[in-house]
């Protein structure tokens, strides 16, 4: 009431002075300008500049200034590069594998630890640890765990009389290892979000189902899963997009090897841009990665919308 009175008073004063109030659109625009300027300087301008670079020839080591306009030549070069296409294939496999693993494990952990009991909360807090460790440290820890000769995992396998695989030296195992490491680090994220989604489920529906004699598996399949599916798909989208940009654990565990086996798109772009200074090629590849991430996100959101339509 006080606010309304003050506003009325101010309007009356303006009317008496013959000042007309500013249109709402103008006021809104004035408030938006700082945010737009900030976004423009920090986001749109660098993006536009990087797009411009991707259309020119520029290797920083050869020249400190941008070279001639080459159109889509850098994009063609990137797409015809065997190392890039190999990295693209591995990145997709890594992202899908790691996302699937973290969704399955995260959901399972959420189901096991959902609830307000103090002990469950403590377990959930402890399970969050991998997510709060710096990715570089995660890679270093796993390198020590997975070392074929002196790693703790093979030490345990050896003690049990089991074969001791070369986790980081065998190309296929190195790829699988990276997916597992990435999933290990981000499973807690899935767990936290899914635990929240499970907590928000309508208790009366679940109670009614149980009263009708539905077992746990049936309740999960027919009620819980459909209700949490949109959240699961949203988390899946975040995980997938994040996994498409994996770099840290590659640097700290395999260095892209053995050979070219674990080179990801981000690794390839990092090498081109910051080690070889092929700025225009790196910019073109970055735009392709951005397009891939957008495409994946759009597909996931579309699928989520469709899934939401099927819900009861």
């Amino acid at each position, binding site marked *: 009431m006080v606010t309304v009175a003050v506003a009325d008073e101010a309007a009356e004063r303006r009317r008496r002075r013959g000042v007309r109030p500013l249109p709402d659109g103008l006021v809104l625009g004035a408030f938006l300008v700082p945010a737009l300027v900030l976004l423009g300087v920090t986001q749109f301008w660098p993006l536009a500049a990087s797009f411009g670079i991707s259309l020119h020839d520029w*290797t*920083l*080591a*050869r020249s*400190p200034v941008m070279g001639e306009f080459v159109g889509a030549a850098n994009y063609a070069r990137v797409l015809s590069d*065997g*190392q890039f296409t190999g990295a693209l294939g591995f990145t997709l496999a890594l992202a899908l594998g790691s996302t699937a693993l973290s969704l399955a494990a995260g959901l399972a952990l959420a189901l096991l630890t959902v609830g307000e009991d103090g002990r469950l909360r403590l377990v959930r807090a402890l399970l969050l640890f991998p997510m709060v460790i710096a990715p570089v440290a995660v890679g270093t820890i796993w*390198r020590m765990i997975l*070392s*074929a*000769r*002196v790693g703790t995992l*093979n030490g345990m396998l050896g003690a049990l009389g089991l074969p*001791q*695989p*070369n986790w*980081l*030296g*065998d*190309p296929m195992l*190195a790829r699988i290892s990276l997916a597992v490491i990435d999933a290990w680090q981000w499973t807690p994220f899935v767990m936290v979000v899914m635990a929240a989604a499970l907590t928000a489920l309508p208790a009366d529906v679940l109670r009614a189902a149980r009263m009708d004699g539905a077992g746990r598996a049936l309740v999960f399949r027919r009620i819980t899963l459909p209700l949490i599916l949109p959240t699961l798909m949203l988390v899946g989208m975040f995980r997938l997009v994040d996994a498409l940009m994996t770099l840290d654990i590659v640097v700290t565990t*395999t*260095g*892209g*090897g*053995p*050979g*070219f*086996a674990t080179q990801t798109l981000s690794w390839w772009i990092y*090498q081109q841009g*910051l*080690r*070889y*200074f*092929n700025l225009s090629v790196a910019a073109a590849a970055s735009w392709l990665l951005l397009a891939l991430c957008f495409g994946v996100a759009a597909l996931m959101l579309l699928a989520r919308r469709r899934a939401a339509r099927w819900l009861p």
Partner: protein
Amino acid sequence: MAHQRRNGAVALGAALLAPLAAGAQAIDFTVMEAGTYDVAARQIAEELREAGGPDVTVHAFPWAVLRQTNTTDLISGTNRYDVMSGGYYLADVYSYFQPLDDLIARDAYAEGMIPNLMDPGRSEWLDGRQIGIPYGIDAMGLLYNTALLEEAGVDPEGLASWADVVAACEAIEAATEAACLSHPTGSPEQIGVFFFSGYDGPYVTAEGTYALEPGAAAKAAADIRALWAHLPPGGNAMSFDEAHAAFRDGQAALLVTWPSFVTNQLDAEDSPIRGSWAMTALPGEGFPWLSLWQIFVPEATADREAAWTWIKAFAGPENATRNLVEHNIGSVWAATYEDPDLAEERAHFWPALTAGFAEAKNPPLSGEAQDFLTNTLQEVANGRMEPEAAIESINAAWASIPVPPALLEAARGSGLAAE
């Protein structure tokens, strides 16, 4: 009151001018953080400061970060650092460094250095002028366990090629319980040592493009694959520490590595292998891989004389022996290796090491060309590519990678370019 204000203004002016005056003699130096070069640099910087020389601030970074820091500082024009540490892998940014030949000539600086170390292909040049001043040398070596080789009846002096090593490995594995070869296989670029020493051909064509001679290169690649069969079990992703430990603990008879990384450990009181290891020349018709730390002065460095004073203090002969003894930094000065006490104490590896210094070179490869070579060689070593196909793929990829002018100059100067 006015008097107090005047005094205050004078004091303030002096305070503001003092850093400017000191700034003329202030040097920012980048160096690798390894507990060796950086520690030596800080020690010498302190001594130089006490002697009234330039005030040197030492900025130490791990190798990969150092490389990135140097290049970013140059390319972005930040120009924070006056003197930089690096090597041939900085070829992409050589144009940002200033030639130092006038200072070298003025002070006869190269007098007493290991012969030919200041030549193109060993230290760094651009447009016929020297830009890099060497201060730490190492060359890849073949270290062996004397007891295990004796048990297997292998003469280390007979290991003239990698094929000889493969044959020796079979004898070693048959006669002992040890594996044959240890090497930091987990560092993907290190595989280059086997190729550089095994391949006796050009890296650059007469037209100035990158290319390998297919037959000789495929043979060198095939030898690497044969060697990989003699690594310890699960040994194709070993870190430096793991590889060194395998040799030190007697689990492997041979070790191919940078000697300066490991010789102190092997001769330590608690080393199981102390007194029963030695070093021989790296096999092959090619060249031992050279690690030559050099100092560069960026074009933007204003106080060139102060930078040169620091270079002479840190890299000159005065502190070379102390740097070797206390920090295991390979001296670039011949006199260090003539010290009778040190020569006797290190008789089991110095002759091979110094012979390696005389032969060692840098491959004239840009980072991109070298990474592609070593990654592809890993594919061969791990059986995922045939040697011939691998060399074909390397030549195809190299065709689109330009040879930086400085490396072309180095390749021609060191006999690694086709006539």
